[in-house]
């Protein structure tokens, strides 16, 4: 469809939120607790955070929850009975306030869940999300969306993209999809006519820091490099980077048993954990942190482009901000680009 550009006045944003709430829409919006901003099912506009460069967590929890029940089971005399989850119970939600680097990540994450097996539950959740992206007019030293093909005003992945015209200005709303159109129609009075507007001048300046094609090509011959060992010495092997990442998709399936009954749940997992690849025999093909760190970079910049034609990194910089030991992915990618094989 043609992109419909509209004006949304700064004071109308709250009205938009309220109208959607009155229409029983579930809204996941950024909320700040203990100084960290994450997406939560939000009842009131007054709780919605603004002014963040990037949220601490990505929004992937909405379509790929950290813990998700897949089925219930119970054992009885006749054998086993299994009841899958009812996809109809998955709610329609509006994802409010995500940055373009998260919106583009939705497609990247989706490509993993549809690589060979089509993940019905993921796809159902994902199809019920309407994305309200908000362009960036600020960035920090951890941002590098422009180095991986994105930009601070990128429309990809959003159903409606809001760009603020200046620090305290009104918004340009780009209605990008039919899903966005449907939501906009609920609150049609909010979306006013817009004569002309050039959003580019309101966007953050995010300089390109490396060439992602060059990195991908280089990684083909980089597997045995000592660079992985040097970079990962200080890595403590936690899962913070993977869990805040908009595109990390690894999970673990567990049975939570309560006597004869139980549930099968899908839980986030991380390739950074030492036991992630342990075989039942006890053998661990990635027995040192450097092999695990290499996997993280290779997966995002080599395996995903090769197999899925997308990068597994949106340049949001969250992993670097969240890392307790300053593993800075941008710094490490630049050094991969610079080092001679």
């Amino acid at each position, binding site marked *: 469809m043609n992109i419909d550009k509209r004006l949304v006045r700064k004071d109308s944003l709250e009205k938009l939120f309220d109208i959607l709430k009155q229409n029983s829409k579930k809204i996941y919006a950024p909320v700040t607790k203990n100084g*960290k901003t*994450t997406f939560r099912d939000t009842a009131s506009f007054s709780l919605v955070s603004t002014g963040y460069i990037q949220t601490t967590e990505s929004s992937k929890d909405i379509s790929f929850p950290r*813990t998700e029940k897949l089925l219930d089971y119970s054992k009885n005399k006749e054998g086993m009975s299994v009841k899958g989850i009812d996809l109809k119970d998955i709610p329609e939600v509006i994802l409010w306030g995500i940055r373009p680097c998260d919106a583009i990540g939705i497609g990247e994450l989706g490509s993993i869940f549809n690589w060979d097996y089509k993940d019905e539950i993921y796809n159902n959740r994902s199809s019920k999300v309407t994305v309200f992206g908000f362009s960036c007019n600020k960035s920090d030293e951890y941002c590098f969306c422009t180095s991986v093909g994105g930009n601070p005003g990128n429309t990809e992945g959003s159903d409606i993209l809001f760009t603020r015209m200046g620090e305290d200005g009104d918004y340009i709303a780009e209605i990008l999809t039919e899903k966005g159109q449907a939501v906009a129609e609920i609150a049609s009075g909010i979306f006013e006519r817009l004569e002309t507007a050039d959003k580019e001048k309101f966007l953050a300046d995010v300089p390109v820091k490396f060439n992602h094609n060059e990195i991908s090509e280089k990684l083909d011959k980089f597997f045995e490099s000592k660079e992985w060992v040097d970079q*990962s010495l200080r890595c403590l092997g*936690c899962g913070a980077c993977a869990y805040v990442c908009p595109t990390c998709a690894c999970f673990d399936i567990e049975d939570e048993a309560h006597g004869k009954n139980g549930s099968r749940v899908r839980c986030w997992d991380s390739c950074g954990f030492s036991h992630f690849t342990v075989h039942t025999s006890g053998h661990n093909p990635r027995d040192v942190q450097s092999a695990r760190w290499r996997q993280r970079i290779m997966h995002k910049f080599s395996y995903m482009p090769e197999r899925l034609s997308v990068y597994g990194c949106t340049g949001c910089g969250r992993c670097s901000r969240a890392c*307790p030991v*300053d593993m*800075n992915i941008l710094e490490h990618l630049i050094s991969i680009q610079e080092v001679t094989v």
Partner: protein
Amino acid sequence: MVDLIKKAKELIETSAVKVVIGYEEGTGNKTRALFVEKTEDADRLIFDSRCVQNLAAYITKKEIKDKGKMAIAATLPVMRSIIQLASEFQVNDSNLLVLGITPESKLVEFANLVEVETFVHQYQIEIDARNKEMLDKLEKMTQPERWKFWIDELAPCFKCYACRAACPMCYCSRCTVDFNQPQWIPVASTELGNLEWHLMRAIHLTGRCIDCDACYNACPLSIPINLLTKKMLLDAKEHFGGYQPALKGDHLMSTYKPDDKENFIQ
């Protein structure tokens, strides 16, 4: 820190140690761990008030230990961790040399861990005023209020285990939470799963935690999990006469005496 750089160079040059663990300038005004294996890298060593990561977490890490004898730039919390680790037979004089940094930011050299212990024992572990106030507030809450406080605080936890990774005392090669046959602690990040994990961690650290706040500092969601270990520290003080890591100390929660004053244990 000129003294530290000089000392690190000397230790590497004379092959007294294979690696010196210290801090370097990081990104975003953060500092981070540096592993000096070549003399020229020693010039990157720094020390200032931003250097709060507990570097003792690295001395039990396979990748670092395998390099050979280590030296470590150790602030008071790091030295305390080292003494506790030594009492648990994880490090000793043959694989670790401590380059102490006093609370006044002066370099102090130690010949062995006994000297480190003597130095450490000059200082009591004191819980800072802000956290003390928070603990008092929790103490005054009713049980349901306290329950709600913890359920709310722990709700955002997604179990990245950064708290475990950053803690020098969490050195088990396989943590209880990593077992699934039987599964002791739920893997899922749910109300119960999060609560069980953090309570289990606090109990495992009682009488071992030296109150460095590494767990809290590492938490990407800033959940105040250090309040749990601080509370255990205060309880240990009340019931067991205080805790100070010691090379030949009684291990507070894992020592059994036939003449224990509590008769339930006999």
